């Protein structure tokens, strides 16, 4: 009994320490976003008159538009990745089409630095006439989102027993029908998890936005970096911007974490 209680306290302390490590820096950002420029020069000052000016500045700075652009790019990139990735990963896992080499290429696709790929992508955007718009970002983001999505999906499909598919075939379903109505429902949580990962990769990318689109079409991470200016210190506005950029993701995390854990579990991530 005593030992159990001791280990429970130890466990709670450990979890609390983890939470504090994550929450304290974020709290500082929240506080900084409410400080006036003069108060911000004293980072540990707790007693101050809160101001809404930073939030107003951040909202007026084009940040909401950048947020929308990031959202659009992320959704399109994830959608494309799913449309081609789901059947592709299934074919790899179930029929071994493409085999080891394709699996390897998928993995290696994540190694090359964006710095050397970005000018080819710039040229591609001119070939596709997407230059100057956020559409220019989509192939670039697909290049690192799609491999991760497919890689995760292969594991999920591999964990679906072949027998349930065969049963569906015996029941008169076509291959495509069996895939659609029997296999997909099994991996749905996994697909959800892959979506979240893929989306966060696209949402967080700064580098491609730096080169591929003009400032008027930039995405969120670059807008945040844009408060680090030679104009002076826009620490407060930047803090508000970081929060504005993170809050949607944090709220989403609250609602999807259960599904994430489920999706990645259930023999999902395995080799």
């Amino acid at each position, binding site marked *: 009994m005593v030992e159990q209680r001791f280990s429970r306290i130890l466990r709670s302390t450990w979890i609390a320490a983890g939470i504090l490590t994550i929450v304290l820096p974020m709290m500082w950002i929240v506080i900084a976003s409410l400080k006036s*420029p003069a108060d911000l020069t004293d980072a540990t000052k707790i007693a101050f008159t809160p101001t809404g000016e930073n939030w107003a500045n951040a909202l007026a700075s084009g940040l909401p538009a950048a947020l929308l652009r990031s959202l659009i790019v992320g959704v399109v990139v994830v959608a494309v990745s799913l449309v081609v990735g789901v059947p592709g990963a299934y074919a790899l896992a179930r029929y071994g089409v493409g085999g080891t*080499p394709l699996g*390897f290429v998928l993995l290696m696709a994540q190694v090359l630095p964006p710095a050397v790929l970005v000018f080819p992508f710039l040229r591609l955007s001119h070939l596709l006439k997407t230059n100057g718009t956020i559409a220019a970002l989509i192939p670039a983001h697909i290049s690192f989102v799609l491999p991760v999505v497919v890689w995760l999906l292969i594991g999920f499909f591999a964990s679906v027993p072949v027998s349930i598919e065969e049963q569906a075939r015996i029941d008169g379903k076509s291959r495509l029908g069996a895939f659609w109505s029997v296999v997909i429902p099994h991996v749905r949580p996994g697909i959800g998890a892959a979506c979240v990962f893929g989306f966060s990769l696209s949402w967080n990318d700064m580098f491609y936005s*730096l*080169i591929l689109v003009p400032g008027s079409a930039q995405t969120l991470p*670059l807008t945040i970096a844009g408060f*680090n*200016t030679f104009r002076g*210190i826009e620490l407060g506005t930047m803090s508000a911007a970081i929060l504005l950029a993170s809050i949607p993701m944090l709220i989403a995390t609250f609602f999807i974490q259960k599904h994430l854990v489920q999706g990645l579990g259930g023999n999902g991530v395995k080799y």
Partner: protein
Amino acid sequence: MATTASRTIAALAAVGALTLSLAGCVTGSQDRSSSTPTAGGSTGEIAKDHSGTVRIIMESVNDTDVIESLIPEFNKEYPNISIDIDSMVYDQMRDKIVASVQSPEPAYDLFATDNPWFTDFSQAGFLQPLDERIAATPDFDNADYFQPLLDITTVDGVQYGVPYMNYAVGYVYRKDVFADAGLEVPGTLDELVTTVKSLTKDGKYGIALQPQRGYKIMEEWVGWLFAAGGSVYDAEGNASLDTPEAHKALEAYIDVFNNAAPKNSLNWMFDDAQRSVASGDSASLISYNFALPLLNEEGGISGDRAGEFTLVPMIGGKSVLGSWSWSIPTNSGDPDAAWAFVSWLGSKDVDAQRVIAGGSPVRESTLEREDVLTEGYGADYLNAIKAMLANSDQISHGANSEEMIQAVGTELNEAVAGTKSVDQALKDANAAIIRIQGE
């Protein structure tokens, strides 16, 4: 296992072959048309009914806001030209400019160009020569720009830019702190060292330095080099960093960093140092002249210390000079409209209006005008800038300036960090200049 390995290799070979053949088609379009100046006929005075759009890339600083506020005035003269300013932080500008000139359809029609970029950009054929336009524009008094600013925009005798902002680096200090301590502004490097040391006590520091690797320390330390009587290049244009003057300057800098600058500030850059003086922790800093209005702004970052700061030229008299100039890219979508804007903004009356609104002075005549001296940031500030411009030099000349500045700035930072001796760092810095920029 063997089959897997060989299959992998076979597949990789296939992918390789495919990619190479793909690349063949891709790189066919690599020969860049070196220059297609669309400007023909009258290139100077642009017709008032000219219609077009000028997309401008600029840094998000105060001067850009000032220029943006003048656009409605411009549109009274040129109602059909729309000006579209894309302002961003310095770190992002050069990458975006390079991307724009690499593109068949440019993202920008007019660049704000920083001084170290001129040689590379003009030699690469990114920029249009402006001499013809300047000569053909009536009342455009080119010679009235401060000569050091014109020198920056001129490569091999051809002018590629029109200055609109200088960011000469000076010494900014707290008048009240100096007065309380009974100190005068130091006149020499030695005096600077003793002055800032004597101000370092009770948790306060004499000076906030910006020794971050690369650009920052280079921009700051070269001022010390000038103060020690040295220079980056000798009279023949050869690297001259392995000299007694450079040794003295770097040793003084390290001495001050260790004994009169905030602790743990090895990675500091502009905003860290500025925050340190704004908060009252440090009594002075070496910074761009436009730092002064930022520090003295009522209700700004300095709180009740606003108004206590003042600016003088770099100790020793010679300042590091940087500047932004307008230049028209070779692939500009509408070079005439771009020139209409540049020449309008550069005309003497508009220039004075710009400086009164808080813009940076670039014309000599502007600083002679009564209204400018009384209505703007004040005569003291403007006269300090005038003095700085009169005796100043850039941190790098010629091609590959970016790489040279990064390399030398890394060596200097290593000496300050103590991971290299002063001797070795200066030798290596000197060798780096020769390697990167030639003899």
